[in-house]
């Protein structure tokens, strides 16, 4: 069987399976069956062995740990305390509650590596509250979904850990590379809220007193130490990425059960169950995507594409635009982790020949994939935010498009200005600061 035939077969079966709404994880596995059955050199046990190899990874343990830490923060009152602090800082800006929504996402991103956890918690906290204050429903959903994507761009990030593991790129450097784009995107989102608030006359709170600011800051300090533990512990070389996730869980447990006493054994059991099931859904999809990716590599399909692209002799900028475009398109249809495994591995050899630095490749891809979390049909943050208030995705698309447009300029800047966006990552190595 030729590479072209196998690629057409696998992508054809995958497309049909997705169209008839077979879950993505199973669709990926089913698409692998025809070549495994037809090729006498292979057999179906490849599915089990490749999935096992993907799962049998110490690094992947960071996924349930980060989700657990985020869920404990939400259940344990940590998010509420951060909310009050955020309100005292930006509550006086036009579109107050929406501004708080964005800034809380930035803070949450420093603790959680999961955008879907952020979208789930903020949707409950903000959407109905914003609508009650007179904000439009579609705007409220859109800004909640859009701000949630910051969780995978600002460190720590599940996507960066997976990226680091798959492509052997320094997770410390990826973490540092996410800081500037994350803060820039947060700033852009605040400007978007400002513009909407001015045009639609959304409400503005009174400015908090300095005393109120100091009081909420003091209360938020224990919660704000979590990013220090996760990111600081990793950057200083105290913990591995996985261990820093476990330490964040222990700290969140301490705050939620001992310090704030808002989580009892019953709530803890619920949080553990939710975390286990949700992490398993994402990681199971990663397993079947790994089989898909393994088969593409086995038939040398990436190399065929390399030959095709190499003929155009793309430089770093053109290649950066190709990476961003491909991940933006793929992000509409695939979850970010499978996309990294399937598409990232296809692009990597091409990127090597174009002269793009590995960390630059990583951050362009991760930001583009983060945008995929709000683009339909498979934008998880958008789906989670819409589901929280039972609104159809199609009703939110206009506002999502308006908000996404200026954010794309930040992605373009990341592609065009590598020296600016790689300044912070160049200060660190995998073992710590230089």
């Amino acid at each position, binding site marked *: 069987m030729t590479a072209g035939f196998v690629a057409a077969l696998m992508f054809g079966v995958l497309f049909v399976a997705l169209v008839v709404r077979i879950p*993505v994880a199973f669709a990926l596995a089913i698409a692998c069956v025809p070549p495994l059955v037809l090729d006498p050199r292979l057999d179906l046990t490849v599915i089990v*062995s490749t999935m096992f190899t993907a799962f049998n990874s110490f690094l992947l343990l960071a996924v349930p740990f980060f989700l657990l830490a985020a869920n404990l923060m939400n259940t344990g009152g940590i998010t509420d305390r951060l909310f009050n602090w955020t309100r005292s800082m930006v509550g006086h800006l036009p579109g107050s509650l929406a501004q708080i929504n964005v800034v809380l996402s930035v803070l949450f991103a420093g603790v959680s590596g999961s955008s879907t956890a952020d979208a789930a918690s903020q949707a409950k906290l903000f959407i109905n509250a914003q609508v009650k204050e007179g904000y439009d429903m579609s705007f409220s959903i859109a800004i909640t979904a859009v701000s949630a994507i910051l969780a995978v761009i600002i460190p720590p990030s599940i996507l960066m850990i997976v990226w680091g593991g798959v492509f052997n790129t320094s997770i410390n450097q990826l973490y540092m590379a996410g800081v500037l784009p994350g803060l820039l995107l947060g700033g852009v989102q605040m400007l978007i809220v400002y513009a909407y608030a001015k045009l639609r006359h959304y409400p503005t709170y009174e400015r908090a007193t300095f005393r109120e600011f100091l009081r909420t800051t003091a209360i938020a300090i224990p919660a704000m130490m979590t990013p220090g533990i996760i990111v600081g512990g990793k950057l200083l070389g105290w913990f591995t990425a996985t261990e820093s996730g476990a330490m964040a869980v222990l700290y969140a447990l301490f705050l939620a059960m001992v310090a704030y006493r808002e989580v009892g054994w019953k709530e803890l059991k619920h949080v553990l169950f939710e975390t286990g099931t949700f*992490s398993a*859904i994402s990681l199971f999809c990663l397993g079947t995507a790994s089989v898909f990716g393994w088969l593409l590599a086995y038939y040398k399909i990436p190399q065929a594409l390399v030959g095709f692209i190499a003929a155009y002799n793309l430089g770093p900028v053109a290649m950066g635009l190709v990476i961003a475009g491909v991940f933006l398109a793929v992000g509409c249809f695939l979850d970010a982790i499978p996309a990294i495994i399937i598409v990232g591995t296809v692009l990597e050899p091409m990127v090597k020949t174009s002269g793009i630095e590995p960390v630059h490749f990583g951050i362009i891809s991760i930001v583009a994939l983060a945008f995929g979390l709000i683009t339909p049909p498979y934008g998880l943050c958008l789906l989670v935010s819409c589901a929280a208030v039972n609104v159809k995705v199609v009703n939110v698309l206009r506002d999502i498009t308006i908000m996404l447009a200026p954010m794309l300029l930040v992605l373009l800047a990341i592609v065009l200005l590598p020296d600016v966006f790689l300044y912070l990552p160049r200060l660190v190595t995998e073992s710590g600061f230089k």
Partner: protein
Amino acid sequence: MRKFIAFYFKALCAVITAVVGALLLPVTLQVVSRYTDLIPTWMWTEEAARFLLVWMIMLGATIAVRLRGHFDIDLLPEPKTRRGRIFARLAVDLAVAAFGLAFLWISAIYAFDARTEVSEITEMSMALMYVAFPVSAAGWLLFLGEQIVDDLREFARSAP
């Protein structure tokens, strides 16, 4: 049978809750042993963590089948009639069940063949890890079977 399925589902939920909690232990022990003299550096901690992770993923994937929690893509509009919606659900469940059946078969053989293999650090039988795959596949089939029977009944009841 219904009672058994409900009991099995509850048991799986209890096990995954315990597994997620247990995941913390080996990783925490690693950190404690590195920075204190309270415990020696145990080599089994990393392998235990990976073992629990494999089981957590496969059990969670099984639970998600009953909860219909696996993500799908909404490319086509929903069928307008109730029968159409049930038919679409049945088609998906049958396709996943067919894959589940094949997966159960191959993963059971794979686990059986690995019964003499042992892990590098603890020398635990690798079959204990691989058996998570057929156990999970059997769970998919059980829960999909329940959903298919429900859908067939609903399909028959909604006859025009």
